[in-house]
């Protein structure tokens, strides 16, 4: 656990362009590897970040991805928070249904991301923005 203590506890990546999507997922992967996540789980984390950042860019135009190192009694984890102050999601139940999309994209974003992580929570208010919180624990 010595290595973990020297890590940055929190990383913020502003999402304003498609380049920021790449930057955010690369930082997420690097953090996961540094915490000892397997390469497979690091890929799941990077993919989840890519998808959440893409949602920010598509629906809200800008926002932020925040990565935080977590520790419970037995193992480390990573918390991903995707926050924007965009239009919000009117019907979260519908947005979490596979195949649903309002932007003409694949409509896999949220339900797909939920499957990539261990814990998933979404808070959204119309006209005020959306915050998705996801956690992945090291096996």
């Amino acid at each position, binding site marked *: 656990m010595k290595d973990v203590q020297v890590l940055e506890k929190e990383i913020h990546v502003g999402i304003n362009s*498609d380049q920021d999507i*790449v930057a955010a997922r690369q930082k997420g992967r690097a953090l996961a590897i540094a915490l000892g996540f397997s390469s497979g789980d690091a*890929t*799941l984390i990077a993919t989840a970040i890519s*998808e959440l950042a*893409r949602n920010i860019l598509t629906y809200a135009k800008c926002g932020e991805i925040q990565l935080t190192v977590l520790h419970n009694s037995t193992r480390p984890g990573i918390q991903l928070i995707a926050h924007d102050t965009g239009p919000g999601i009117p019907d979260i139940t519908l947005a979490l249904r*596979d195949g649903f999309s309002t932007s003409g994209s694949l409509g896999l974003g949220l*339900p797909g991301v939920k*499957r*990539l992580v261990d814990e998933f929570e979404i808070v959204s208010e119309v006209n005020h923005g959306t915050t998705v919180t996801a956690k992945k624990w090291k096996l």
Partner: protein
Amino acid sequence: MEVPILKQGDCLIATVQAALTDADLLHFRTALIQQVVRCRSRGVIVDLTSLDVMDSFASRTLREIAQMIRLRGAETVIVGIQPEVAFAMVQLGLKLEDVTTALDLEEGLAHLGKGSASSA
């Protein structure tokens, strides 16, 4: 980041070598289709061995590329999808339906009828 596209006989081989932004992917799509037309290619291999993340946008763009190339009368084979990437794609629900995939460049070439070890 530009994706290099090599011509080998009547095939094209495009090798993704670094992380691609959405803009890079769209640029790659255009460049590859143009090359298919210019070279009158019969087959195209897109090598994703170095790709570390495939999200919904990359997956959709690759499907579009394969569909466009098919409309030109040529065939696309996606090769080299890493096991971790494949796992994440399945979890995310990305299927790359209707797109031919192969283990690696050699198998991709074999699928296109270009022989395997001898020409690789």
